[in-house]
């Protein structure tokens, strides 16, 4: 017997989902949903275990669901899954307030953090990352050691970072970008092609393992504190942590933009990722309040441009997009029998 909504998934979305759940619990006749922070992958895995009261109704994810995960859902009888884009999360490169201001480009970040980088002599080969200080990469940058605290590979933040920064930075090198084009692998069978692409990606996205990038665990507050203790270090954080700790840390300009609600929402600030919510259609109308909860989530009050989630650091969708979703939700009726 279950009379509450069961939500699992991303720890990033957890921070927002819980706010909605709490308000929802207080203002509706339904019980407050239970929200588990399992990480996007773990959540979707649980979510796709099946239909029924034993299984979660909603999965949060800080990335889009994968085909393999959808397959799993299908296999287990979860046929209809509703995807809802709820907003964006910015990823910032922060440093202690005492540190020297840095302005970086994604290319520089790539050069600073990738395991193998293009040979500086201009030949089309890669070498083990030789850069010790930022200054080594671009002479205008300060002469401080490259030291970046960041989350471990299990984290969605890290995923987004490699995709949005490393990949991008990597592809600013023409020859590297070309290599990763599928065309370059013509006339090979699919498996080979895949392998090649994979190799390319690994080339671009592999992080240094020599201590310049420091796995600092999943706890962003810890990173904030560590930055505070190490004025020379940079750290990868969720935007909301920057928002709450502006007296201690500041963010580096990336590609000329500082992260802010506006710059992230408009897409000027380059490192941000979409946040999703996946709902089992079969549970709507069966578990009390599922529909109402989603409605609350996408409402103007919550996710609108001045909604309460904004204050929690979630970057809202553009108005048009959000309204489209709201309409889609309104069209949703419990599939009554």
């Amino acid at each position: 017997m279950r009379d509450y909504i069961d939500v699992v998934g991303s720890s990033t979305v957890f921070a927002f989902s819980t706010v909605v759940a709490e308000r929802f619990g207080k203002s509706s006749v339904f019980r407050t949903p239970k929200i588990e922070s399992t990480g996007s992958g773990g959540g979707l895995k649980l979510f796709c275990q099946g239909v029924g009261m034993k299984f979660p109704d909603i999965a949060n994810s800080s990335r889009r669901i994968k085909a393999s995960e959808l397959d799993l859902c299908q296999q287990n009888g979860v046929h209809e899954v509703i995807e809802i884009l709820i907003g964006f999360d910015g990823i910032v490169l922060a440093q202690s307030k005492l540190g020297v201001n840095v302005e970086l480009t994604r290319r520089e970040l790539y050069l600073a953090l990738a395991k193998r980088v293009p040979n500086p002599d201009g030949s089309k080969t890669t070498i083990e990352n030789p850069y010790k200080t930022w200054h080594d990469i671009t002479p205008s940058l300060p002469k401080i050691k490259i030291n970046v605290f960041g989350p471990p590979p299990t984290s969605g933040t890290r995923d987004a970072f490699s995709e949005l920064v490393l990949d991008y930075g990597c592809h600013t090198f023409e020859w590297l970008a070309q290599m990763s084009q599928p065309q370059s692998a013509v006339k090979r069978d699919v498996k080979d092609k895949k392998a090649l692409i994979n190799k390319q990606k690994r080339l671009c996205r592999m992080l240094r393992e020599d201590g310049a990038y420091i796995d600092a665990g999943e706890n962003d507050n810890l990173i904030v504190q560590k930055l505070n203790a190490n004025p020379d270090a940079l750290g990868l954080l969720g935007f909301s942590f920057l928002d709450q700790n502006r007296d201690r840390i500041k963010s580096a300009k990336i590609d000329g933009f500082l992260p802010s609600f506006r710059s992230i929402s408009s897409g000027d600030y380059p490192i941000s990722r979409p946040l999703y919510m996946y709902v089992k259609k079969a549970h709507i109308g069966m578990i009390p309040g599922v529909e109402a909860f989603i409605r609350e989530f996408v409402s103007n009050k919550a996710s609108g441009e001045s909604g309460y989630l904004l204050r929690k650091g979630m970057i809202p969708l553009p108005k048009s997009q959000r309204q489209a979703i709201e309409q889609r939700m309104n069209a949703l009726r419990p599939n009554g029998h």
Partner: protein
Amino acid sequence: MNRNLAKRKRAERRFRFYGIGAILFGFACLLILFSDIIGKGHGAFFQTQIQLQVRFNAQQLQITDPTSKTQLDNANYDAVIENALLRDNGALLDAELPALEKRHLLSLVSTGAVYSLKTVLKNAPETLNQTVSIWLTADDDVDNYVKSIGRDGQGFSGRLSLQQQKWVERWVENGQVRQTFNTTFFTEGDSREPEQAGIRSALMGSLYMLLVTIGLSFPIGISAAVYLEEYAPRNRLTDFIEVNINNLAAVPSIIFGLLGLAIFIGFFDMPRSIPLVGGLVLTLMTLPTIIISSRAAIKAVPSSIRDAAFGLGASKMQVVLHHVVPLAMPGMLTGAIIGFAQALGETAPLLMIGMVAFIVDVPADLLDPSSALPVQIFLWADSPERAFIERTSAAIMVLLAFLITMNGLAVWLRHRLGRGQ
């Protein structure tokens, strides 16, 4: 001989000094940790409140009958608060506020303030359409700001705009701001608004879990220890079992979570996130500690006592229950104290069975979803809101208080039992 003696005396003094040093070291660590925690967390026990003149305008509230429960539930308190805030700042404001600033002004009061208005109106329906002076809970940003003002003259402005800071400063000057004891922290469940967050549900969750754990692991642990020490024959197999139990203590706690997930949730089909499962997992985890220490304690009971009892014709059960267990009880309790202390602070296995969750409602029984104190600490420590930092430490203090009470009981018991010897 004399030189030798002097040397031995020095060794003796040194030895004693090491003993004192060791204890002092332990104490110093405890002291440092405690002062660290208390220093960070004491602030959470106080909550900033703002005094406002609230007019319960029936029209704004959209109610007609202040005694009707449904009407009270659905009334629009936000409008009343907004009105009060605007009027309160009337002197500052020449013109109509732009929408953004209005929102800023509104955000100075906790979103939970509406509930206090509801309570006031419910308790005194006659105040409808009257103006009452009410202390409302401030937003966590204001709380942070006001609390940090005291220390260095300048507050942590964090997320407050200049305008907002000015408003708050004016309240401070007018004496419209006060710090009260934060009862919410003890009476409420989790919340994402720091000023409304409490540890009640986590505390109850921990309590339920611990009840299960104590109720199972202590009797099972000492029974197993008694069996292995007093009944089991000595052979390779029992050696193997002994070694394995010792070995269980080194199994990372998360693996116990995996085991619990497989057995209780997978096989027995129990729901996720419930204290019963948590307690069972922690039982499995604390068993080795209790068994090992109980065995050590049983081993330490001199065999002449057993002889004496056997010689009088006591049966094995009587020897065990009348002599061995009472004499070994202090040692068994020590194991239990340490085991439960560990269980009380453990997060990793709970991760596997879904207890790392946002749960607001206070669990009513063993089958209600709940979190636990260490989980609450873990979650708050990972929350972006600044005010959660002190709440994290405060929650740790509560956990420690819980621990100390529990240990206190056990220590008292141990002391009582130890005196009989």
